[in-house]
């Protein structure tokens, strides 16, 4: 039996499997968690991995496996909301800039450049500082810093696609700009957006964990990965396990999304789109 081409891409397969596993763990957290997130076991403080505590315990004997799977819910929720919001805003801006050109393009791209000019984590920190923590505010802060990448990529793709014969034909038939943008151009620009979103999920998880690590994420008792890592630094000299487990969890998750994004890029190959568009002209 022939293996389908996408499944022969190791990045896509490994990244897809890691992502699927993390998503399943987050969704099924109440079922797969072996203990309550605040349940203490003072006889087994700072335990390494055991049959009872698969990833060990913290200074109160709280089960790290359970805290990690519930933490996955928080990290993935914020990542999905922020990447979804950033992709939506960036796509609309990119489509408008690329399709209408002229002063619309100039204005939208200058605004994009201004937001790109701020180091992401600094702007996100400042926004969370003034708005306060919370899933919505953290997601909003990440949307503000991430939408620009989508705007630039979608604009570049739209510039190529708007010259295509089928788009010209739709225009000649009197289709409205909105119809052309969302029915003709957007479906063909989805490849690069999906690749960016997959890589963006990893970046969003790192950023959310960084905010939590610095003390500006969701407050306890929410067991965010970044907070657990920061908490572990208090004991890093004698009990580094806590920091190692939470950091490794973040890294493996981000690695999954990055590999998935790389694999999707190979399979969808946005450059092929540009090349075929060039030929069609």
């Amino acid at each position, binding site marked *: 039996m022939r293996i389908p081409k996408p499944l022969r891409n190791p990045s896509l397969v490994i990244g897809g499997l890691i992502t699927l596993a993390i998503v399943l763990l987050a969704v099924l957290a109440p079922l797969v968690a072996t203990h309550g997130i605040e349940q203490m076991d003072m006889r087994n403080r700072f335990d390494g991995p055991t049959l009872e505590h698969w990833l060990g315990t913290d200074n109160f004997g709280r089960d790290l496996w359970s805290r990690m799977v519930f933490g996955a819910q928080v990290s993935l929720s914020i990542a999905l909301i922020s990447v979804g919001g950033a992709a939506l805003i960036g796509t609309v801006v990119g489509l408008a800039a690329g399709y209408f050109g002229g002063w619309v393009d100039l204005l939208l791209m*200058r*605004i994009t*450049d*201004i*937001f790109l*000019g*701020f*180091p*992401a*984590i*600094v*702007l996100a*920190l*400042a*926004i*969370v*500082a*003034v*708005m*306060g923590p919370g899933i919505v505010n953290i997601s909003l802060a990440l949307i503000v810093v991430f939408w620009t990448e989508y705007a630039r990529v979608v604009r570049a793709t739209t510039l190529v696609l708007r010259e295509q014969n089928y788009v010209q034909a739709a225009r000649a038939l009197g289709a409205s700009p909105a119809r052309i943008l969302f029915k003709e151009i957007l479906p063909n620009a989805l490849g690069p957006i999906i690749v960016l979103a997959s890589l963006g999920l*990893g970046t969003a998880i*790192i950023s959310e*964990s*960084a905010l939590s*690590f*610095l*003390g*500006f994420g969701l407050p306890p008792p929410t067991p965010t990965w*970044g907070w657990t*890592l*920061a908490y572990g*630094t208090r004991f*890093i*000299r004698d009990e*580094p396990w806590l*920091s*190692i487990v939470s*950091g*490794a969890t*973040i*890294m*493996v998750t*981000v*690695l999954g999304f*990055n*590999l998935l994004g790389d694999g999707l890029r190979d399979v969808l190959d946005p450059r092929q789109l540009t090349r075929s568009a060039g030929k069609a002209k």
Partner: protein
Amino acid sequence: MIAYTIRRLLLLIPMAIGMVVVTFGLLLLIPGDPASVLLGQEASPEAIASLRQALGLDDPWYVRLFDYFAALLQGDMGMSIFQSAPVASIIASRLGATIELAVVALILATLIGVTLGVLAAIRQGSLLDTITMLFAQLGVSMPVYWLGLLLMLAFAVLLGWLPAVGRGTPLPEAVLAALTGRPDVLWDSISHIILPALALAANSAAIISRLVRTSMLEVLREDFVRTAYAKGLRRHRVIVRHGLRNALLPVLSIIGLRFGALLGGAVITESIFAWPGLGQLTIAAISQRDLPLIQGIVLTFAIVFALVNLVVDLLYAAVDPRIRLG
């Protein structure tokens, strides 16, 4: 080149205006009365009224925006709420440490990234290529704060080779001291900066190595490389003189962007290694919700980033005429 430089400088003006507007807009994001929120629930009505006046909150937003612009043009970023000092001078006292850390990290990232990228490209498909790219993938996925902690744990706590936190003598001064017969000062300075700079550099080194590998593989397939081999040039000469020189162009273009990422990353790295720079100040300002200081820091980061990008763009245009003529 002069026309291109003037064009790029002029583009910086609307960009800077936009950045000031965004920074000013942070104040508008505060829910409720900003003075009460910034000072907290226990603040006296007099203190709140005084802060309202200091921040100009009784005026309409466009008057405040105009005043903010006017003050910035005179180098006045306002007064810190909690440190009772001008924001500009607080920032100026910290900026050097952050730029030093970011520059050393950028140099490390470029050296490591280019070396690994070239090795992977010239040994494409080998075990070395696989291992290098595996490290690159890990480098991209590893949070800077975790790597920082692991480095600290290994080299400061377990091995005791390097100091865990703090900063030695500023590097430029340490170099001068070494030149006047005090090499110990330079070593002290280097020993303090190695771990934070490595932690900060890892992500950029990974990205640069992937880019160099791709770029190098493309260049090595070009006709002029084949011609160079056909002329009988030695392999290392072809790789360095013909391959690397051309493959490095795209790297130069992303170095400006990486510097922005390094400045952002410095916020986290500095908080781990107690590096007394702008990043540590950012965390302190945000913890205290010292808005004038937060605004000043955000704006400073953006302006430094814009200036670095400008310099990189000009360098890029100088080495690649297609940019300035295109």
